[in-house]
């Protein structure tokens, strides 16, 4: 079967764009897991709520960028509150309880969204339209901008972690929570902040992705699953790994959609996960197996 080169190239770009957004979602997830060993089932719902808050702010102000910043901030705050009420009490308990608690949170948030916004999808207008010609297609600029923005946010996160004082606090807490606290780092607040940051990043992804698909209450479910796969494939807690894995998986899925239906192309990510778990369980992109 002949697949024309231009289609492959288009899918490559699509794959990278989706991959960058997935990377943004996954990096929040892996950050949270790395520092507190919590598998945040509610992450997809934070993504979804970010998109909805974006819709609301956009409707009120007409400004996409305000919506982006506002949603990130507000959902980040929500994330912090979720942490304080449901996860902080569970510190020191069986890790299973955090999976259950976040699962419960995801149920509540998802149904809350259904209740408040109804089942019909909403739309976020792109901040600017405009296409450039890519072969026979009109390829929207906006998609490239999303990829760029996602990359910028992740880059910003990386710089913050590497050089900022609070970045060092976060990294120290991730490596040795007990000694970090013994060095005067207020670990309980660091944990809350990281959860809030992760939530904010999920929200930002939701707003950025909003114009590409409709915004509806169930949009989080698909993403959280894919994000989990990416986090496991990339090595749990490994920021660089999850970014690489996100792009890798998205590219493979984009190429697969040339051959099978989009509904079936998701199996690609499943297969990648299974292979990773069989042969390199610590992560495909982790240099040395620990």
């Amino acid at each position, binding site marked *: 079967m002949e697949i024309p080169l231009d289609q492959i190239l288009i899918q490559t770009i699509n794959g990278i764009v989706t991959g960058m957004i997935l990377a943004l979602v996954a990096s929040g997830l892996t950050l949270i897991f790395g520092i507190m060993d919590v*598998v945040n089932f509610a992450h997809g719902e934070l993504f979804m709520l970010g998109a909805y808050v974006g819709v609301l702010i956009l409707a009120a102000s007409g400004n996409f960028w305000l919506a982006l910043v506002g949603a990130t901030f507000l959902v980040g705050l929500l994330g912090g509150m979720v942490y304080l009420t*449901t996860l902080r*009490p*569970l510190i020191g*308990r069986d*890790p*299973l*309880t955090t*999976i*259950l*608690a976040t*699962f*419960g*949170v995801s*149920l*509540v948030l*998802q*149904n*809350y969204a*259904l*209740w408040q916004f109804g089942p019909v999808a909403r739309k976020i207008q792109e901040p600017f339209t405009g296409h450039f010609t890519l072969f026979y297609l009109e390829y929207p600029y906006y998609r490239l901008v999303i990829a760029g923005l996602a990359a910028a946010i992740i880059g910003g996160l990386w710089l913050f972690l590497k050089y900022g004082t609070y970045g060092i606090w976060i990294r120290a807490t991730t490596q040795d929570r007990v000694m970090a606290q013994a060095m005067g780092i207020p670990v309980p607040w660091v944990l809350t902040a990281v959860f809030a940051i992760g939530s904010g990043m999920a929200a930002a992804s939701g707003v950025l992705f909003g114009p590409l698909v409709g915004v509806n209450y169930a949009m989080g*479910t698909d993403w959280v*699953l894919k994000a*989990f*796969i990416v986090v*496991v494939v990339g090595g749990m807690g490994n920021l660089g790994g999850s970014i690489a894995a996100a792009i890798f998986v998205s590219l493979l899925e984009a190429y697969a959609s040339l051959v099978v*239906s989009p*509904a*079936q192309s*998701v*199996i690609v990510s*499943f297969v990648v*996960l*299974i292979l990773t*778990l*069989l042969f390199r*369980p610590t992560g495909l992109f982790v240099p040395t197996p620990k």
Partner: protein
Amino acid sequence: MTQRRLLVYWAGFTVIIALLIVAPLVLPEFWRRFLTEILIWGLLAMSSDILIGYTGMVSFGHSAFFGLGMYGAAAALLSTRPPSLWLALAYGLVAAAGVAAFVAYFSTRLRDIYFAITTLIFSQIFYVIIFTATAWTGGENGLNFRRPALAIAGLFSVPFDPATLHWFVLAVVTASYLLLRRITQSPFGMVLQSIRENEARTRAIGYPVERYKIVAVMLSGVFAGLAGVLYAIQNQFAAPDFVFFLVSGEVVIYNVIGGIGTLVGPIVGAAFFLLLREGFSRFLTEYYLIPVGLIFIAMVIFLPQGLLGFARRWLNR
């Protein structure tokens, strides 16, 4: 267990069974059906307890076992005229066992969180396959079929009426409970519990932990599939929705609410959850999951041992 406790336990057991037997004769149809469904979901939750409560492995994959049991039964019921009960059971259990073996092979070598995530993903894989293989599975719309009769070939055939169907389900669920109880108290069951307590030590003593885990998953999967078959017979349809991972999540909720490691707890948990859902949905129509979810979260934080958790040791003698 002391003589007296044993007596109390079996007395309680008999009373409950007696009540359940009488139920279809006194309850209106809606509640009769509701009760039967509680039993079926209870069986599903109980099967999951083998993994969560006794072996210490949290699985989000039970929707796959349940769903495949359902579709297996559907396949049998659609392939013969008249539809055969025993064939449905056979197909359903084999399908569920097959899926369980497949999942067990890949996931049991993984610990804790990875196991949970992998089983979740397997549910989704099966969901996608069933959803998209429209020719075989009816895709989104599922399959509809007729209910088989309670029959032994050549001897007799009695179509199910609401009461007899309920009694059939009750008999299957009760037999399953007794069987599972026997298994958990057997040497095999003891090893499983030892794995839950301290896997490293169990391995160090010399037990082939992986093999025990695989058997546990298959055992759990078969009973989950059985629940799926019962569901298919009761409701006469199969749909991909039941394979979606959220169903697995709900099953885990029943387990936690009822109390893991008790076998009966999950059934109580299922009853509690379904009653709550029924109650809330009368007032809040579709958004009943919000208060139910909040109650669940509160229970995880404040009452982690579940409703029957306090009786765990007692129920396991």
